[in-house]
């Protein structure tokens, strides 16, 4: 056919249109433009730096991978004596905080309900003024500091600060402090470490050793060795969580009655008269306690209290007394019920009967030589004090929050919110706006962990280890190291302050100087030493040779830490005085006698691996993985014993409503034969309201207002619950 011009134009138009459509389709198939900067830019020069992880008290050493001087990945440092190349999920995600979109980029000030960004000097001035005004009128008791940091240096600074300014109410709420408090109450000092190599039997009271502990990675390794040596671990806990299922024996028991079980076992030891006779001397009022226990805690009674069959109690008791060096272990997690501290005390008493086998203190420990007070006297106020004084109207003038998100971690959130919002001045140092810091009037965001210098002291392995946390990148935003703020506050509030250093880094340098002078230790350049080297050591040979301090400092940063490989250990043999906390009235638990527990259910909130702050679900990688083992994603689930489920006629993976006194919330039923028939096990950590992708539900919201009478920790296990069909 002949084509005239108009036809030709038409054809051309069609062709172009066709090409356009085709091109469009092709474009759709390509990878999104948004990724190109990530993938294409830069010469991609790779480098590695060592730093320390600050997600938990473990003090693992990280090996961070940088591309063009931007960190992208973090792995374990194979030369670290603590983690030995391993790393946990939390540590792996420690980079992602740095790039978090909702990180605070500058100090914020609340002006009629909205946060506006201000300069640091301005913010500091406001803070200083407020403090001055209160301190002028000697109302230091109305200033509260709530801290949840793993950094000993910051803790130390805060302690100095509170001492100098006379602020009594410093609440240090971190893992180590909480686990030490019962010891501090009873014995004045806590053991530095537990050495499982010295033990031949472990009776674990609800601690998740390889999941949530002073050093999960170290413990998971040592426990494997322990079991390979053929020794037994008995775990008494309310749930057989991920790590605990490795223990040879599981005694299912509601954690509120752990103390009763401990005393029940004590009864066996006392009855058989097989116990360390020194205990009679070391424990004040031993005989009275002994008599009390002997009459009140015979196995039948304990069986009624705890629901543990008495044969089991006897068996365990016998095992405990037969063992040469049995260790009864508990940690912070025991505090999360109404009689927490008392339970802890009764376990301490049980340990005293066997001379605290395995527990020890580090001889001339570097840690204690640097910080005289951090281990014990810090946290001279508990969360209870805070609650009581906040409850009494407008008694708190100033609240300083650092790292703590206590509103999320508490069960009586609504009341707390009300009370907190009534406080006239709240300053928060958190680098995000979370459930707690929304109530702040002033936020001075802290650096990210990868942006600040810090020392991480650990004695978990029985030797003093100092892991350096070095700044890997320069601060991205207008953030300020909280330590520096505290220091300058000290200077401004107290003219004749005996704290002479002008900044944290300077202070840390001074500690490094101590390290330099302390010639016992070695750089973390090797984590194994041959016998020959040890022998040489005896005759005064030094592991590392360094001429000047600067040299030492550089190599310290290069190798990421310092430790004392040949350090000696002392046994832990304290003088114990329970200050008539023990003997204590029996905690009555109706739930446990067989008749009523048939159809009674209790909410048992358990903490996921490595997640004792409940912050796991804030990380995009981890929130997806939160329940992947149960293949439940972004949702709350409730693990329930199949027979209980059948009694309530619930099918696996069915949606239900869990009803407590505070209301009801949906959950997915997951069959799990390894939970107690009387509990609904729900995970803790989901349901953040402000940060993250607000997925799931925070079960603490719905658990009853039951607290440990001493430490003020919310009870995780004592809320009665019912199951309703999903509507």
């Amino acid at each position: 056919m002949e084509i005239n011009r108009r036809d030709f134009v038409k054809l051309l138009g069609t062709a172009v249109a066709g090409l356009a459509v085709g091109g469009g389709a092709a474009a759709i198939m390509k990878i999104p433009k948004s990724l190109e900067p990530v993938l294409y830019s830069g010469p991609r020069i790779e480098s590695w730096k060592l730093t320390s992880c600050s997600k938990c008290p473990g003090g693992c050493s990280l090996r961070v991978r940088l591309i063009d001087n931007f960190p992208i990945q973090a792995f374990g440092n194979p030369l670290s004596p603590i983690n030995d190349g391993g790393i946990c999920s939390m540590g792996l995600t420690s980079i992602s905080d740095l790039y978090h979109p909702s990180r605070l980029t500058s100090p914020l000030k609340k002006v009629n309900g909205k946060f506006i960004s201000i300069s640091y000097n301005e913010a500091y001035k406001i803070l200083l003024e407020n403090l001055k005004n209160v301190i002028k009128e000697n109302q230091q008791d109305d200033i509260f500091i709530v801290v949840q940091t793993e950094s000993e240096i910051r803790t130390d600074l805060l302690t100095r600060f509170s001492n100098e300014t006379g602020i009594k109410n410093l609440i240090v709420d971190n893992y180590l402090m909480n686990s030490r408090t019962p010891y501090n109450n009873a014995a004045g000092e806590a053991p530095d470490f537990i050495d499982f190599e010295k033990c031949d039997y472990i009776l674990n009271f609800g601690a998740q050793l390889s999941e949530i502990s002073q050093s999960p990675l170290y413990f998971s390794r040592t426990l494997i060795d322990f079991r390979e040596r053929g020794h037994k671990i008995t775990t008494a806990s309310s749930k057989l969580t991920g790590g605990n299922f490795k223990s040879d024996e599981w005694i299912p028991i509601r954690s509120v009655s752990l103390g009763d079980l401990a005393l029940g076992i004590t009864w066996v030891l006392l009855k058989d008269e097989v116990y360390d006779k020194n205990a009679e001397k070391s424990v004040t009022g031993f005989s009275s306690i002994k008599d009390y226990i002997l009459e009140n805690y015979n196995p039948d009674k304990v069986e009624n209290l705890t629901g543990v069959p008495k044969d089991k109690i006897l068996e365990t008791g016998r095992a405990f007394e037969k063992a040469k060096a049995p260790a009864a272990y508990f940690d912070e997690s025991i505090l999360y019920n109404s009689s927490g501290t008392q339970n802890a005390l009764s376990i301490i008493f049980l340990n005293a009967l066997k001379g605290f086998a395995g527990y020890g203190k580090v001889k001339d420990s570097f840690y204690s030589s640097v910080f005289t007070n951090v281990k014990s006297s810090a946290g001279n106020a508990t969360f209870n004090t805070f609650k009581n004084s906040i409850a009494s109207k407008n008694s708190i003038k100033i609240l300083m929050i650092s790292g703590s998100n206590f509103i999320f971690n508490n069960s009586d959130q609504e009341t707390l919110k009300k009370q907190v919002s009534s406080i006239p001045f709240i300053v928060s140092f958190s680098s995000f706006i979370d459930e707690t810091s929304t109530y702040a009037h002033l936020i001075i965001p802290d650096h990210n962990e990868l942006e600040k210098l810090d020392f991480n002291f650990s004695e978990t392995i029985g030797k003093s280890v100092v892991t350096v946390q070095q700044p890997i990148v320069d601060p991205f935003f207008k953030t300020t190291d909280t330590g520096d703020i505290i220091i300058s506050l000290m200077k401004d509030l107290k003219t004749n302050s005996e704290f002479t250093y002008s900044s944290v880094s300077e202070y840390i340098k001074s500690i490094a100087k101590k390290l330099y002078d302390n010639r016992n230790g070695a750089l973390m350049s090797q984590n194994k030493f041959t016998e020959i080297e040890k022998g040489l050591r005896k005759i005064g040979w030094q592991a590392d040779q360094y001429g000047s301090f600067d040299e030492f400092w550089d190599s310290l940063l290069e190798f990421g830490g310092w430790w004392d490989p040949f350090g000696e250990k002392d046994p832990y043999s304290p003088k114990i005085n329970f200050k008539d906390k023990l003997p204590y009235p029996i905690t009555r638990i109706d739930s446990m006698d067989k008749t009523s527990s048939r159809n009674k259910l209790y909410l048992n909130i358990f903490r996921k691996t490595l997640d004792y702050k409940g912050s796991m679900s804030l990380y995009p990688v981890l929130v997806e993985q939160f329940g992947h083992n149960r293949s439940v994603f972004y949702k709350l689930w409730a693990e329930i014993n199949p027979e209980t489920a059948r009694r309530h006629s619930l099918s696996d993976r069915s949606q239900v409503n869990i009803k407590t006194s505070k209301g009801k919330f949906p959950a997915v039923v997951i069959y799990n034969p390894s939970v107690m028939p009387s509990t609904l096990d729900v995970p803790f950590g989901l349901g953040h309201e402000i940060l993250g992708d607000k997925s799931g539900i925070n079960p603490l919201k719905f658990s009853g207002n039951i607290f440990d009478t001493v430490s003020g920790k919310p009870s995780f296990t004592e809320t009665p619950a019912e199951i309703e069909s999903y509507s």
Partner: protein
Amino acid sequence: MKNILSFLVLFIISAIAGFYFFGKVQMPKTVLVAVSFSHYVHTKQHKMECKNCHQNINTQQRAGIPNIETCSLCHANIINPQSEEEKKIYNYVKDNKLIPWQNYYVVPDYAIFSHRRHTKIGNLECGLCHGDMTTQTSPILNNFRPFEMKICVDCHKQKNITTECNNCHH
């Protein structure tokens, strides 16, 4: 009736054509660099080698495009007063701003290409892929070799190196 049919056919054909054209071929981009850099001057006149400026050529995946910290080694002060381009460089160095180079040879993200593998291990000449840059007096305007897998595979075949897909696509 027939017209419409023919138009339809044409449309469909050209759509498919467009799909594959835009899908495979990458459009030549216009390079707007701040400084019209002359490889000729550097290599021929001043007898410099590639790796003097492209420093990671034997050590890293990417050769890297030098920037002021490298340029300043020579251009800390003006060498050739009558050169306009050098002034620009000098200014960048002086007020220590990064030179906004455009890197032209960009390997698509689904193919991993390592310079070291080719230069150090395979010891190939740069010219093999980049052409003779020593004659270039101004920034290049099109690839010496287009980025097509065929080119790679052919070369690998004739040098009988493995053509295992997974070695470059992972």
